């Protein structure tokens, strides 16, 4: 019998910041905490990135399990295929969100086996106590994923929290209706608290919630201040690292750990800026990651960009905060913690609306790109079309075309692959595109001289 070949050993991706290198152990510990909580019989809530109610979960002493994060880990460990295939075998289409397929495939396999699948990445994904949907970001799996998961876990209740925000219209002032949205938002959050009290037996600690809401405000502002340091030339941190530092931003919000992490990051970046220490010694091209989730199995491509003299001082993906003191309202005056959460998020989602209305042909997403291109002295834009994620990727090409139409003809590159499904990825072809894009950037620079 032929001996089975060992899988290719991959090197760990090199990070520019100390802070980013600490993230993998943090995630591992976070997943370890969920596994331990399961053993100890503590309530566990499966939920989503930017669910808007992190503080509620923590204030009720419920342990969150972030399903997209776990699917991303399976992708990054290049161990998602067996779960994708399991989901596909259950008649779920391969063209659905591959985060959801990976998570559902994992759940299906675990429930079928009656135990964790063999050698699951970082210990595995547990059966939760409750599953909490989140209607924000207009992502359908955020409501449908857990309903589908009930096929495998019919005894786990689902709460779909409908969190919406006003649609952008260039001829309509959304401020006229934002009060109605806040009222609805708060009702949804109140319903969530009731649901959690009923199914976990844990009571809401309202004083604790207020403390965590305040902690989250401070963390948001700290993240913004740290990321703004990346405007420096040379930039001290790139998007490759930001794909790590997003973890405490979107999976640990409302914890002291997240605040401390960003304090360390802020201090580190400030020192690097003072020392003029960049991601690479000779920074030639400054790029924006202008949309699309990354291929978690190919984060090394950011290092490949670096090897060609290109850095990413800024990205729109996973920059899920704004400084609350930049809002057009004084958030500190909202004392009710649920209403405070609602306003913080609604103002975030609508942050670029007013600016967009002032520029004919613009849209909030386009306006955000323009602002970052100017603030961070950007030479080119890179986007990633992940075939399985419609929500974040539909409209990217339109945004790019509109940006070029109403602002300037900036060099651009569209990468095509997926977030988890490695079968969509070809390293040689991807790097050939990057090489060609570098040629375009160089030609544009030469013309500008």
């Amino acid at each position: 019998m032929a001996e089975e070949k060992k899988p290719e050993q991959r090197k760990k991706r090199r990070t520019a910041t100390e802070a980013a290198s600490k993230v993998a152990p943090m995630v591992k510990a976070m997943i370890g905490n969920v596994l331990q909580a399961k053993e100890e019989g503590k309530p566990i809530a499966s939920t989503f990135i930017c669910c808007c109610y992190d503080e509620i979960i923590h204030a009720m002493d419920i342990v969150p399990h972030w399903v997209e994060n776990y699917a991303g880990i399976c992708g990054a460990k290049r161990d998602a295929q067996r779960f994708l295939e399991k989901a596909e075998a259950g008649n779920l289409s391969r063209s659905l969100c591959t985060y959801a397929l990976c998570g559902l495939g994992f759940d299906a396999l675990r429930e079928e086996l009656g135990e964790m699948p063999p050698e699951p990445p970082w210990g595995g994904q547990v059966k939760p106590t409750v599953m909490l949907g989140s209607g924000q970001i207009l992502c359908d799996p955020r409501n449908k994923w857990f309903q589908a998961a009930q096929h495998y876990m019919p005894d786990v209740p689902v709460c779909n929290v409908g969190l919406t925000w006003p649609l952008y219209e260039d001829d309509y002032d959304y401020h006229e209706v934002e009060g109605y949205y806040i009222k609805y938002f708060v009702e949804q959050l109140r319903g969530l608290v009731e649901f959690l009290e009923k199914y976990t037996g844990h009571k809401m600690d309202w004083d604790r919630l207020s403390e965590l809401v305040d902690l989250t405000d401070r963390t948001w502002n700290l993240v913004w201040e740290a990321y703004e340091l990346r405007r420096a030339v040379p930039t001290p941190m790139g998007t490759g690292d930001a794909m790590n530092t997003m973890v405490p931003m979107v999976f640990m919000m409302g914890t002291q750990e997240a605040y401390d992490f960003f304090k360390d990051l802020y201090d580190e970046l400030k020192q690097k800026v003072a020392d003029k220490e960049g991601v690479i010694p000779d920074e030639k091209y400054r790029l924006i990651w202008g949309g699309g989730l990354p291929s978690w199995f190919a984060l090394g491509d950011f290092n490949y960009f670096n090897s060609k003299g290109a850095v990413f001082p800024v990205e729109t993906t996973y920059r899920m905060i704004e400084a609350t003191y930049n809002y057009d309202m004084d958030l500190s005056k909202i004392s009710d913690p649920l209403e405070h959460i609602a306003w913080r998020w609604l103002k975030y989602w609508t942050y670029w609306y007013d600016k967009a209305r002032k520029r004919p042909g613009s849209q909030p997403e386009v306006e955000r790109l323009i602002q970052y291109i100017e603030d961070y002295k950007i030479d080119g834009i890179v986007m990633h079309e992940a075939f399985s994620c419609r929500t974040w990727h539909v409209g990217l090409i339109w945004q790019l075309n509109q940006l070029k139409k109403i602002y300037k003809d900036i060099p651009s590159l569209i990468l095509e692959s997926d977030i988890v499904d490695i079968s969509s990825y070809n390293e040689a072809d991807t790097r050939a595109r990057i090489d060609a894009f570098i040629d375009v950037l160089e030609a544009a620079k030469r013309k500008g001289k």
Partner: protein
Amino acid sequence: MADFFAGVDIGSTMTKVAIMDGGIVASVIGPTGPEHRKLANKVMGEALAKAGLSFDEITYVVATGYGRINVPFADKQITEISCHARGIGSLLPAARTVIDIGGQDSKGIKLKDGRVVDFVMNDKCAAGTGRYLEVIAEALGVALDEIGRRSLEAEREVAISSTCTVFAEQEVVSRLAEGIPVEDLLAGIHKAIATRVYGMVNRLKIEREVAITGGGAKNIGLVKALEAKLGFQVLVPPEPLLTGAIGAALLGRDIVEEAVQSGLSLTRSERRLREATFFS
């Protein structure tokens, strides 16, 4: 003594070499095999023999194409996007859009003032590439270099709904079994590939004039189908397969001229053709 420059374009299907001074001194086109390094050595040797030159007489060598890193004697590697743009800039200076249809991929390149301002590539799927035509030619039992001409003899154009190469092959075989003439099927196939390529390249907002390069440009049926889609005539260089190699040689000349003008020294490869292996 004249300066000579060489461009070596190792594509997925064909390998091309052009040696140039003011014009083309010699060129070689041959199939790409599995061992690029040995192949690069061989075709360069053939081109030198045709030109009656020794390798020492070549001032600068630029390699391009997807196998460009496997040209050990090249002074520089440059992407095929830049080389095609430079080649077309010299051969057909009126072109603003380049459509390159290669063996395994297809590309669109937008030019402005002789420089690349944008590009798109299809490297995910065989549809829209030479591979698609190879598969269909084989399924219909027609020689690859005949399918373009035969498609123009069609009495009507049969709609081929599948864009996937595998499904298109199945569709063609089943339509053939229905008794539909080969020419009509070929007309439908060429329309399908032209539609797909047009859709991709139009992401760049196609501007006249449009030049077609690569092996696809040698297929008269495909050129006509693209012209029908575009609504105007396209430009085709005299030997479309050589566009990248010519561009590579010209970029080599640009590099040397710039270095001379600025007084900088050139970084060049070891000045001999190496009998390279995968271990070198």
